[in-house]
């Protein structure tokens, strides 16, 4: 079985994986990072969104073995010393979550948007979230949260 060495949330990790092991399964099943979720089979729901080298990606569509030498950030890697990241805080302040299942993916997607568009309009936010499904909130408060999170990060 191939071995893969990568950094996850700032820590060096070495794992034995099958060739077919997806990154989402490495994170959840082997590293115990269950904050990233599986919501579909066809890479549409976005609940599995993480960052690889700072860029958002759907971890259900990435082979773990292809992450050799890369740096992966998951939702668990955002808060520092128990203090929420401004984007996380914005989601709380603006009720951007209800059941919480899609939330990690939403937050990671939001950070990716802000990385290349620090002051997105509500329209731009809505369009960026095409790859993230939410069934509870109707998205409105997610959009408001991301707007506020972007402002807090400026």
């Amino acid at each position, binding site marked *: 079985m191939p071995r893969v060495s990568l950094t996850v949330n700032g820590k060096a990790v070495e794992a034995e994986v*099958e060739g*077919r092991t997806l990154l989402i399964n490495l994170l*959840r099943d082997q590293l115990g*990072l*269950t*904050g*990233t*979720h*599986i*919501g*579909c*089979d*066809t890479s*549409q*729901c976005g*609940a599995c969104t993480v960052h690889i080298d700072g860029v958002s990606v759907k971890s259900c569509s990435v082979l773990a073995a292809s992450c050799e030498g890369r740096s992966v950030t*998951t*939702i*668990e890697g*955002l*808060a520092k010393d128990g203090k*929420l990241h401004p984007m*996380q805080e914005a*989601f*709380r*302040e603006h*009720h951007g*979550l*209800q*059941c*919480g*299942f*899609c*939330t*990690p993916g939403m*937050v990671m997607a939001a950070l990716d948007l802000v990385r290349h568009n620090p002051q997105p309009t*509500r*329209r731009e*936010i*809505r*369009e960026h*979230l*095409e790859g*993230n*499904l*939410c*069934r*509870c*909130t*109707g*998205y*409105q*408060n*997610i*959009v408001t949260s991301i707007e506020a999170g972007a402002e807090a990060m400026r």
Partner: protein
Amino acid sequence: MTRFGIGQAVRRVEDQRFLTGTGSFVSDMSLPRQCYGVAVLSPHAHANIKRIDVSAAEASPGVLCVLTGTDAKADSIGGIPPHFMPEAWGGPKGFATLRPVLLADRVRCLGERVAFVVAETEAQARDAAELVEVDYEPLDTVVDVEDAIDPSAVKIWSDNPNGNIGVTIAFGDKAATDAAFSRAKHVVKLRVRNNRITACAIEPRAALGAYDPASDSYTLYTTSQDPHGVRSKLASAIFNIAETKIRVVSPDVGGGFGMKANLYPDDVLVLWASKRCGRPVKWTATRAESLLCDTHARDQVVHGELALDENGKILGIRAKACQALGAYWWAAMTAPLFFSLMLIPSVYDVQAVDLSTSAVFTNTAPTSVYRGAGRPEAIYFVERMLDHAAYVTGIDRVELRRRNLIKPDALPYHTPTHQNYDSGDFERMMDKCLELADWNGFEARKAASKRNGKLRGRAVTPYIEMAGVFNERMELRFDPSGMVSIIAGTHSHGQGHATAFAQLVSEWLGVPFDSIRYIQGDTEKVAIGRGTFAARSSMVGGSALRFAADAIIAKAKPMAGALMETSVDDIEFRDGRFTVIGTDRSIPLTTVAKAFFAPAGPVLKFGLGLDAAGSYSGAPGGAPNYPNGCQVCEVEVDPDTGLVTIDRFAAVDDLGRIINPMICEGQIQGGIAQGLGQALIENIAYDPSGQLLTGSFMDYGMPRADDLPDIASSLEEIPAKTNPLGIKGIGESGTIGAPPTIVNAVLDALRPLGVEEIDMPLTPLRVWQVIQEAKTSAAA
């Protein structure tokens, strides 16, 4: 009103764990030595099973056991009955069915489980599942509800005396309605279809079962909205054991919407397999398995008639409906059958109704409750009829509604479907919503759209629903440090109960908000509960909590008296403190609570510990509440592509009394998105042989962030008169009001082209098609 009290937009205590990825969803959980189960599903919608050969699967690497329907019978594993039948609600007797957890003889829909493979890893279980050989003898299928109701249709249950009809339920008075129709100036007829959809909670269902031989008992972690209900069914129907032998835990659940409110075969399979294999068994649905095997919803057709006088006053309503049960009468499907008729009169003053619905078996996934559960069907029907009536008679659609709305001085109003509306001002809700949506500014926007080559339309939907079913129990329990826990029989899976109920307790008991702990979802920790569905929790849970709080104060008062050496008659409880009336001598409840844990001293006579439970009954034992309001939508339609864009959406909701307005708005927005999903995007489609065509998110459309505009919503409070808190439940208004509002708005845009009818979902293709058909008819 305190900062964390009733009416405040308190930020949620639940969010910390969800935002940091430390929630405990079932698929996040693992037990030592667990193995993994995968179900083998029938690829046929109707077939006899001639032979099942599991030998190759059993020999596959990592496989621990393979279970079949024959094994289930040998182990006396019972089938799953429906929650309740129409007889329980005073209706006629229906044809009940038992659903085996594994089928051995005949499958009646796609997705029936025929084997369960358990292996060391999920991948090994999936690989082995493909090696299970099943010989099927396919049978003819019937999939469409209108086809299945025909006496000549393929019969799904051979011992059903009534073809594929499970029951026919009726409300009203045929003679009185016929008389009303005979004197009508206008009789308007319409057929509407409420299309089949499914909840698509983003968290797929999952179950983790463990049998403990030392205690001969089971533990199940499941994605359920109703853990106690699951426990009861497992005990009584499946395993035939005492409930004390089963523990069910519903931890964090990623959305339910009614779909997760019943026991599934998969819950049984992991427990049974755990006993057989001697290890915990974990099962997680793929999205494909979810679309296939989750309960579906709606799938109803109504033929309706509306009788109006020359002024547009509704004289009578006729409705003849049929609604699909799917392959089994299962879960809570009885409820939508009743609600789909009971709320047809809606907020309108009409006494002559003749309403019926037939529940019909089809070779499709069983249907059950989904956000609204029959109320969406009722309101969709009556509002489509009213807009059609406005169009046919030429009476303005707002005016037509206004002339028929029940006036405040007519309350309490008894409907011909046995509902008693206790409070509300329906006209005020409608006028507020029209204003919020700038109804009067439409013509200018329509002209602007036209200049851009687009059509514009609008619609208004007053609605009412019935919420707050069954009874509930809530407990308050103090600990030696003076902190209080809420032990809830309800189940929050997104609704923010940990916050909202803590707000109630904070206000009533005056204890610090941050000191309140919230416990739910575990049959070991919660004595009994009914879970959360049908917009019940704020009313029945909140009222039960009120009685628990009152009982705490009553128990604590004598202790307070003893501690302050004062008679109880001279003490009052206010703002979290027991105060000697007329003085400034007081003692906080927290201090009094601690005294109940003292190991020695003169206060032992008051007992050890401070706790109390409260119960409250909604319908049918007590009264429900009637959330109501209005929605307005304006759409733009591109006639060349059929694309519908929602330009504006306004909602006004009478919530009786609001605990947390932020949470209420979130519920409204989420429900409207789901309603929009049904109206424009979502559809469960089967081909005539029962194959599911919408088997993944590639084909089952889901509303996305850019499908919606910002919704303007206004929360109103006209307290309910029939529960101590005055609450009206908010959970479902969106899925009830949004579909007719959107569809009627599109029709408003398309009527100038000659389009008169359309069925959901209004995909661009469908809209484009009706436009083409109208053009062809016009040319002919």
